[in-house]
């Protein structure tokens, strides 16, 4: 049987990733990209809502998606640290999207054929969205990696900065092999170097247990401020 924390983990990943990505609105390098990033943030937000609603039902204490999103503290969130890291530059955003979307692809592929019918249904819908996120982040990783010297430098720095946080994605049931092969293929074509596992001793972890980076509390403070200022109000 699926545990509440398992579903919260999926929902929180999607919610925090959406919140970060939505920060790009009005800040993207071109208008077309502003629209594309908003579409992806909307996909993730939609996944978060379905998953948090389901988590609330599993818990059985009558908590809604909004109760779970707005009335939990940072120690109660179950997302991986990768998605809560600050917005960074465009390379950070797209490399992070590549790592995360490829992970979500593996994750949802598993859930679609899993025992939990409800999760399978959510995953089937989300899988189509994630396929687009993989496509979008792949195209941009190629362009940044193999574009100009500056974009190559920034893309490589983003890969190096984010890589340690990817290990946390595979502490659960999602297998790493398929993900690693897919990442390797994109990075190689983008002329980017993937940090070797041997060299990466820094492997931050704890998100699934509610231990986060310093950044999550700030993100939640902003996200929750209005909702918490009016207890019990409808919006």
């Amino acid at each position: 049987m699926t545990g509440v924390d398992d579903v919260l983990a999926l929902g929180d990943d999607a919610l925090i990733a959406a919140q970060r990505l939505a920060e790009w609105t009005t800040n993207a390098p071109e208008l077309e990209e502003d629209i594309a990033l908003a579409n992806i943030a909307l996909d993730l937000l939609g996944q978060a809502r379905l998953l948090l609603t389901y988590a609330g039902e599993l818990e059985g204490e009558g908590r809604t998606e909004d109760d779970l999103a707005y009335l939990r503290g940072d120690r109660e969130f179950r997302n991986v640290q990768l998605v809560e890291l600050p917005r960074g530059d465009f390379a950070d955003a797209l490399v992070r999207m590549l790592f995360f979307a490829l992970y979500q692809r593996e994750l949802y592929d598993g859930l679609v054929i899993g025992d939990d019918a409800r999760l399978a249904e959510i995953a089937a819908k989300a899988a189509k969205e994630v396929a687009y996120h993989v496509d979008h982040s792949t195209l941009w990783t190629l362009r940044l990696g193999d574009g100009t010297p500056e974009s190559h430098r920034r893309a490589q720095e983003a890969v190096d900065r984010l890589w340690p946080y990817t290990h946390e994605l595979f502490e659960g049931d999602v297998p790493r092999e398929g993900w690693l092969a897919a990442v390797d293929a994109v990075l190689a074509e983008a002329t980017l170097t993937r940090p070797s596992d041997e060299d990466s001793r820094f492997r931050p972890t704890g998100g699934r247990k509610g231990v986060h980076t310093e950044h999550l509390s700030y993100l939640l403070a902003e996200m929750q401020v209005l909702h918490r200022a009016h207890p019990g109000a409808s919006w």
Partner: protein
Amino acid sequence: MTAVPLWEVFVRPRRGLSHQHVGSLHAPDATMALRNARDLYTRREEGVSIWVVPAASITASSPEERDAFFDPAADKIYRHPTFYEVPEGAEHI
């Protein structure tokens, strides 16, 4: 820096209809143009298929040629079925 090319976008609203021009956008290459067109012009399920064409590749008739191109068709009304008289009593014609 070179200007980012302009692309014209054509969308097939649903199966059975032809692609129709819906607008334009800027993109560095065809791959990105197609994605941008998807995000910009089909957010509300407006289409099932998209074409993008570099605006620079379109050859258009010019307004100066309007008379020579399109006027000569005006007096050839025998191309339309309404030109013909059908005798009374003839069916399915």
